[in-house]
């Protein structure tokens, strides 16, 4: 072969197979979503029957919207994920900076303790967390849903690993120029870790957008409950499942996340790739 090719790029049969594989995976991934779209926009009779001429209808969305106070659930969910993410970013950045760049007594033991948190399922701690919230007189508030998640072990670990990859020379150069510790963090480390922040933000927001059991248990009223708790009204176990209404409600509640992902898709994918290369 005389032409120059990227040696990593597959050719011939390999290329065809890889494209086929990608298409199959993409189709499998989109299938549930496509089904949700089909069911949500058609009357219930067509929930399990495919007929391209079936009449379109928005009635499912109307029914779903009226079944629960979704407007306030939306507001609560948005407040919740923003609050958690903001607190996580501040706490994790500071903690990770200390773990990555300062030598202090007991640092490794402390870091181990943080890592231990990663191995415990949050669901196990429900009773203890509830007791804490009750003692703080915080039950039935949005703060109570978010508080246990704010010091995220995963976030600290991720940021520490990222900060460790920043060349020491940059740090030293900044200090020679007279930057304080906080300035070094904000001007050197944080900008370099931006892709990781984006990736972490995505994971955090989607996790807390979808979190269900803890919010259900610690809250009691419409004023503090998130979307997932509202959605649960539709899973009527005694009666079988009304797919039309449940898919409409699901689309409605996941729409903001889906749209945001489509809009910022490029940034997300790029930041994940960069975060991976490091």
């Amino acid at each position, binding site marked *: 072969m005389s032409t120059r090719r990227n040696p990593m790029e597959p050719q011939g049969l390999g290329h065809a197979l890889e494209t086929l594989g990608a298409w199959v995976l993409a189709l499998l991934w989109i299938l549930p979503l496509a089904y949700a779209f089909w069911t949500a926009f058609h009357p219930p009779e067509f929930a399990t029957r495919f007929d391209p001429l079936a009449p379109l209808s928005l009635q499912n969305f109307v029914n779903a919207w009226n079944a629960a106070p979704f407007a306030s659930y939306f507001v609560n969910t948005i407040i919740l994920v923003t609050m958690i993410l903001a607190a996580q970013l501040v706490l994790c950045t500071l903690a990770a900076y200390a773990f990555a760049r300062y030598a202090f007594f007991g640092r490794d033991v402390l870091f181990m303790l943080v890592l231990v948190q990663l191995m415990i399922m949050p669901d196990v701690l429900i*009773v203890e967390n509830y007791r804490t919230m009750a003692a703080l*007189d915080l*039950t039935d508030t949005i703060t109570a849903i978010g508080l246990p998640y704010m010091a995220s072990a995963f976030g600290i670990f991720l940021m520490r690993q990222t900060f460790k990859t920043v060349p020491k020379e940059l740090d030293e150069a900044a200090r020679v120029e007279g930057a304080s510790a906080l300035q070094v963090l904000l001007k050197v480390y944080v900008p370099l870790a931006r892709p990781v922040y984006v990736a972490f933000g995505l994971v955090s927001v989607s996790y807390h957008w979808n979190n269900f059991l803890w919010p259900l248990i610690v809250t*009691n009223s419409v004023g503090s409950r998130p979307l997932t708790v509202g959605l649960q*009204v539709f899973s*009527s*176990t005694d*009666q079988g499942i009304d797919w039309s209404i449940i898919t409409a409600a699901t689309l409605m509640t996941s729409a903001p996340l889906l749209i945001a992902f489509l809009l910022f898709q490029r940034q997300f994918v790029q930041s994940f790739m960069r975060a991976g290369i490091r």
Partner: protein
Amino acid sequence: MLNRTVRKVAVLAAAMLFAGGAPAQGVEISFYYPVAVGGPITKIVDGLAADFEKDNPGVKVKPIYSGTYQESVVKALTAHKAGEPPVISVLLSTDMYTLIDEGAIIDWSSVAKSAADKAWMKSFYPAFMENSETGGKVWGIPFQRSTIVLYWNKEAFKDAGIDPNQPPENWKELVDYAQKLTKRDASGNVSQWGLQVPSSGFPYWLFQAFTTQNNVVLMNKDGTKTSFDDPKVIEALQFWVDLSRKYKVMPPGIIEWGTTPKDFFERKIAMMWTTTGNLTNVRKNAKFDFGVAMLSSGKRRGTPTGGGNFYLFNKSTPQQQAAALKFVQWVTSPERAAQWGIQTGYVATRPDAWNTPEMKKYAAEFPPAAVARDQLQYAVAELSTHDNQRITKVLNDGLQAALTGAKTPEQAMKEAQREAERLLRSYQRR
């Protein structure tokens, strides 16, 4: 938060003012309830609370939606352990022993002491009380209760040459009809199954119908012993397994509970077993003439009851308990029980509810509504023991292993019994 503290102080001050004064003044009773059937249940419950408050000024009822039954019991027990449980909660009747073992509830009999109160506790169908009493005390008040019934597609019966108004009377007819109703094409693919008995989620409940019909009970009255390896239990499981293996009238493997009604509407199945709670759903969505009947009899007729009771949590004040009693008596009164049954499809829990004008009208317009009531005389208590969640899981796993063919019915039930005995050993010594 500050606001809340202020409110607490205010409530405290009010409580001190009224202490010894008129009871049920400024009392708030929180009330957890699960949603297990479709429709705007949360709105119906909010409406009930508002109606009660109108009739009883001074008492505030705060309904709190708490997810499915499983999630509700988790929420209630978590709140109990943290020291702020609800005053009352609707939870599965089978959670009774668990709640007693956790020290979370007090018995209604200790609050409802007057002659009228005692008569009220005796006014429910005895079948529903089986799961609500133990040790001579009443722990649960029946609220949203159900049984299993048979739904059949009359058109499919006609097509198969069976009298559309004659549901199968016994197991032999059940198999016989189901065979006639199962349609296969030339290559052996089934386009319509004769019968579907769901086996996902809580197969033990449907299994109890088979065992009751085979004239055997799964547990003793104290909830300390199970009899999963009784030959009659194994025989009942063999029959369930045979429906798909031997007679080939039911889809093989695990049958999803949630989609069974849909399969019925789509004419993929001609008969199904499911809860009476589905009645309103089937009535609305079946595009063909259908019938509702008691389950076919084996050695006898039988079905377990199911559903939720009111429990009274023990960290409440005497004023709250008095108010809670008033609310529960109000909500289970004949008129309300009838209204709740009509709106949801649950069985109205007491005989006199069926004599109210609304219920009479409803039953006359829609006779299937009365089938579950008539079946109650054959009903038994749903499986409920100490450490109930784990015992039912053991049984469920055994049943599913047998239905998928991973184990023989005998092997599955013997293993389940061994495991259940291990779990219950500590309760038997008490």
